């Protein structure tokens, strides 16, 4: 363990998740620094949500995991039940994709919000209620005292997601884990929710692990972004680099496949094939069947190696962003990155 420069708040080391006979996550490593926003981007089957759940130890029992997850230096896998409860209630807060499925439909919004404050925080009923009203107002919910008496089904998805964020904030977590928190919302509400999440996170100095399928969104709201494919991290870059000079052909393909509001209209440059889960992906580079640059060398799995300001798992990456129009010399930045965040993964290579 070569100590990183800045101690990570969350460190995932060589995480493997496996269903019987089916690898789902194969060796994910990532660091989230205190106060940092890290985006984990991937399509279905990439293992991004499993990784998030593994961080909270919320995986179904049928799945086997290997590797280590360190929160503030402590091994999450070794937590006692009491420690795990403390970790989940105070250390990490989770915002789920579908708030409706994660908020008890037969309890009022007020009950939902005050429960944690009262059982974990030990607040009196009145204090918990006034605090909950304050939280609701902070997340932009109007008429908060009235909302407290309403039922989850009476609120729209956007409002309910804000209630969820308020409940997470109530516990003052040091890391917020958000799994596709805006996927069920329309674009305007999404902007709203992301802005609220971003503001509050920064004010409170909480770190964010943001799981999403939306590269553009992750790049816009995160400091760093990791791209997952078939159970592995294939690329990790500072967010501003990612959109201009993606290193991995998969990332480049995703960026080009996305319809745009400006620029040429015509056909979209789709990535051929479909995203594969780890157990269906070919040996070697999991992306090679879909990759425009695939060659014989791709039969060997490319290690995740440092390049420029980030890391990439592609044999061709140093020849400029492969197959993209964004191709500039990425080598110039080499060495300027954050070496502390690299160590673990490339040793495994």
């Amino acid at each position, binding site marked *: 363990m070569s100590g990183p420069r800045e101690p990570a708040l969350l460190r995932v080391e060589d995480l493997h998740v496996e269903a019987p006979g089916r690898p789902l996550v194969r060796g994910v490593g990532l660091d989230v620094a205190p106060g940092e926003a890290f985006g984990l981007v991937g399509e279905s089957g990439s293992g991004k949500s499993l990784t998030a759940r593994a961080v909270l130890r919320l995986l179904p029992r049928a799945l086997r995991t290997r590797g280590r997850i360190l929160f503030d230096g402590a091994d999450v896998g070794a937590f006692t039940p009491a420690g795990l409860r403390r970790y989940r209630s105070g250390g990490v807060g989770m915002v789920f994709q579908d708030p409706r499925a994660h908020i008890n439909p037969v309890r009022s919004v007020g009950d939902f919000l005050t429960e944690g404050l009262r059982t974990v925080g030990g607040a009196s009923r009145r204090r918990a209620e006034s605090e909950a009203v*304050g939280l609701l107002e902070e997340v*932009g919910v109007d008429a908060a005292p009235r909302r407290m008496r309403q039922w989850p089904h009476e609120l729209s*998805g956007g409002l309910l997601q804000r209630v969820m964020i308020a409940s997470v904030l109530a516990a003052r977590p040091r890391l917020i884990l958000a799994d596709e928190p805006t996927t069920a919302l329309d674009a305007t509400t999404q*902007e709203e929710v*992301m802005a609220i999440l971003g503001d509050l996170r920064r*004010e409170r100095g909480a770190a964010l692990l943001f799981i999403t399928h939306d590269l553009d969104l992750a790049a*816009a709201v995160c400091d760093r972004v990791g791209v997952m494919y078939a159970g592995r991290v294939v690329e990790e870059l500072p967010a501003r680099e990612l959109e201009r000079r993606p290193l991995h052909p998969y990332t480049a393909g995703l960026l080009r496949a996305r319809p745009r*509001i400006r620029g040429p209209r015509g056909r979209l440059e789709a990535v051929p094939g*479909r995203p594969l889960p780890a157990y269906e992906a070919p040996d070697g580079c999991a992306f090679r069947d879909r990759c425009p640059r695939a060659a014989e060398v791709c039969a060997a799995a490319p290690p995740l190696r440092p390049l420029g300001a980030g890391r990439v798992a592609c044999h061709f990456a140093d020849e400029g962003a492969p197959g993209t129009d964004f191709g500039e010399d990425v080598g110039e930045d080499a060495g300027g990155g954050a070496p502390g965040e690299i160590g673990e993964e490339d040793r495994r290579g």
Partner: protein
Amino acid sequence: MAETGTGAPLLEASELRKVFRVRNRAARGREEAVAVDGVSFRLERGGALAVVGGSGSGKTTTARMVVGLEAPTSGTVRVEGEDWSHRRPTARERRRRGSVVQMVFQDPYSSLDRRQSVRGCLEEALALHGAGRSGRPAARRRADALLDRVGLAPAHGGLRPGALSGGQRQRVAIARALAADPRLLVLDEAVAALDVSIQAQVLNLLADIRADTGLALLFVTHDLAAARHLCDRVLVMDGGRVAEQGPTDDVLAAPRAACTRRLIESLPRPGWTPRRSIGRADPSAAPSTDPSAGGPGGGPHVPHPTGIPDPGRTAP
């Protein structure tokens, strides 16, 4: 086929209005919710119109009235000049309408019968539109041709939906819609649930089919960028009303309605930062350090963003 030949547009919706009666616990009874209010538009043969709006804008209800899954409270839907909206169709009429208008739904998981094989699904659709009994070699050939049309292999025909990915299922749903050889395809958020790399494939597929067969598209979506790639014209809805409509490029280049501008601005893109349009309890919208959860001050605020039709929008 029987062309009406009168120069009537393929689809003409005029002054569509839909009022749902909803239970309201607080009001101790039922109250009315206006989902769609005075929506009018035309779609020519082979055209492509996007209906864009946020959730609660009434875009899906509009699409469902067009295909006849909902009856309008008032207003009319005319397809090839024929009024479809004011009579409960018989099974035969539904079949005839089905050969003109078909629909692809948002959720690729529930829009196919999970116990029916892909080929069974396609052959059933073909049989309903006069392509002969399922199981016959001719029907099988046509089902395979449909699979090929949407980029699937004949081997996919033997599978049940559970063995297919989301994108593959949506291709099957498109193939099923094409089985009727319709002139209009209504797409209700048909790519919203798909992975980004698959979304592009399906959008391309739809554009190809339109180019090859002259199939008209009514593309209901919240995604302005996807709408732009598939459709020449766009209609923006907000609060059940038409906010504006026009050629896609014009609307995107110079949006007139505030809600169109909001939709454009809310699309994540390089250099974009999400902004809050709604205030918060304490006026410190700037990231000042305020570690306390915020006192119970505050007071009433800007109305919440969804629902509640916005008055003052102009109908076309």
